[in-house]
């Protein structure tokens, strides 16, 4: 290979290495801390762990939320982490299902049935992103209170979809809109009902876009800390982010870091499995939508 080509390759590989370090270092750092004993946390090397242990993770599951005594004047409590984990699974599953269900219904209406002004409907729905979230939870509390949902997990299942819905409806309806009419029409002429044509033909065809919408929803709702901590007050009703936010980090830094990993790792694995599908779905929606 010519010296120039060789230099180029080296430059490219350095670049790739830099990108990987930039992207993964924070994730690696948090993972390493969670594997440390208290002693290594204080005296060890911050970047590596010499005696990895899972005791921080175990302790999260052992504790049930009872007080552990006092450290100075501070009540040192334990945390009902297992309950938080269950709550998180319930909320996230419920939200993703509700978001995809409503988004597909709306997108089918806008992309296939096309009521008058369907493009404007789509824009109005997407435009809800301009509403500033800042102090929205104050009036939102009125709604929550009127529905009798104070300190209830259902609040999140109702509020979270609105953060992902506008994008999902836009993406899915753009995709539906540009699927050729004929593929559905043939089935309708054969005597199939609209519902059959939808479930048998349209839905299987749009699998990549559905995956993209699902991953977008998961990524969006998993980033919320504010809504969860505002609306879930008692610790048995909290999700992991809300619960971790109430931890006394000065005392339980290692537990908090372990908790972060316990929430992040499953979500990262799920997302990684669908990562290629996510890009494929976005591309499909853009091809049809642009």
């Amino acid at each position: 290979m010519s010296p120039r080509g060789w230099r180029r390759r080296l430059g490219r590989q350095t670049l790739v290495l830099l990108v990987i370090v930039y992207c993964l270092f924070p994730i690696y750092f948090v993972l390493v801390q969670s594997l440390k004993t208290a002693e290594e946390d204080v005296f060890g090397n911050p970047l590596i762990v010499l005696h990895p242990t899972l005791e921080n993770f175990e302790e999260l599951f052992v504790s049930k939320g009872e007080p552990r005594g006092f450290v100075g004047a501070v009540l040192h409590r334990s945390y009902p982490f297992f309950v938080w984990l269950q709550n998180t699974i319930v909320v996230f599953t419920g939200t993703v299902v509700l978001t995809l269900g409503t988004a597909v219904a709306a997108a089918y209406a806008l992309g296939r049935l096309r009521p008058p002004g369907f493009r404007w409907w789509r824009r109005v729905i997407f435009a809800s992103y301009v509403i500033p979230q800042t102090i929205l939870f104050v009036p939102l509390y009125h709604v929550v209170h009127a529905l009798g949902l104070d300190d209830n997990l259902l609040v999140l299942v109702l509020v979270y979809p609105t953060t992902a819905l506008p994008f999902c409806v836009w993406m899915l309806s753009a995709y539906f809109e540009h699927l050729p009419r004929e593929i559905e029409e043939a089935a309708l002429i054969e005597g199939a009902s609209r519902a059959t044509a939808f479930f048998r033909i349209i839905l299987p065809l749009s699998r990549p876009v559905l995956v993209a919408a699902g991953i977008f929803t998961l990524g969006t709702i998993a980033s919320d800390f504010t809504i969860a901590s505002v609306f879930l007050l008692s610790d048995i009703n909290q999700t992991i982010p809300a619960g971790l936010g109430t931890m006394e980090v000065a005392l339980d830094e290692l537990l908090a870091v372990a908790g972060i990993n316990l929430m992040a790792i499953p979500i990262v694995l799920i997302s990684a499995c669908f990562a290629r599908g996510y890009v494929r779905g976005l591309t499909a929606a853009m091809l049809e939508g642009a």
Partner: protein
Amino acid sequence: MSSRVGTRRRREIGLAYLLLAPTLLLLAAVLGYPLGWEVWTSFTNLSPLQDRVAFVGLQNYRGQIEDPQFWLAATVTVVHAAITTVAKLALGLGFALLLARPFRGRTLVFLAVFLPWAYPASVSVIGWYWTLSPPITTSYSVFMGTLKYAVDNALGTGAWVFLSVTLFNIWRGSSFIGVLLLAGINAVPPELFEYATLESKSAWQRFWMVTVPVLKPFLALGVFLSLTSGFADLANVWMLTNGRIVFPVIGTHAYWLAIEGGEFGPASALSLMLVPFLLAALLLLFRLFDPPDREPA
């Protein structure tokens, strides 16, 4: 016959509205009513510290414009948004262009680029925050503490926290935009890029004459979503630190007014002032992405 077609179409339209209803109901309850409340409140002196609510017209808006705190927050907001958006776009575009061509280990690099966004920000913001401002003597807290005080001394108290949140926002946002742009590049026929390679004099020219214009709608989408979601990171830290963000942006300043000061009127007026700017960005996005007359992009 035509009346039967008419009936069918009417039933289709009816079904369409029925299917739209759940989405519209959710948005109306969770966003519509609160928005209405905010607009109404911005014209009143509503406060938990007061019994009687009075209509005060534009006074809240006027009060904000005359307040130097508002201008500080507005300046920080604009600078923060500009810097993070440019950084996210530059990094994201770099990632997308790097990943657009095949090379050994591309799948792994792609996953690495994808993960900062997929990693749940609700918990990573906790980890990030406590890493950069360590609470107790961990092995890295001396190093981080030194850095923190150096930055705070140079730029003012609170600068380090603000800077770290900004970095976090860029780290996560560049991942999202990178993947979005990669999907955009995949949607462009490869022949276009091949043709551009033949026709253009330099890679630099090709970048500005072909890549950027072709990706413009996706860049616009990325900018818009990054602007509207960028606040969430700051809000997260605000919640986490009980409002100890010394550098106010419009969003956190509104929080502070509402929650610490109980001044719902000015807080509502303040957060609504962002809407015209976001709307302008949205209209631009619609023009680029979803042209009303559907001319081929």
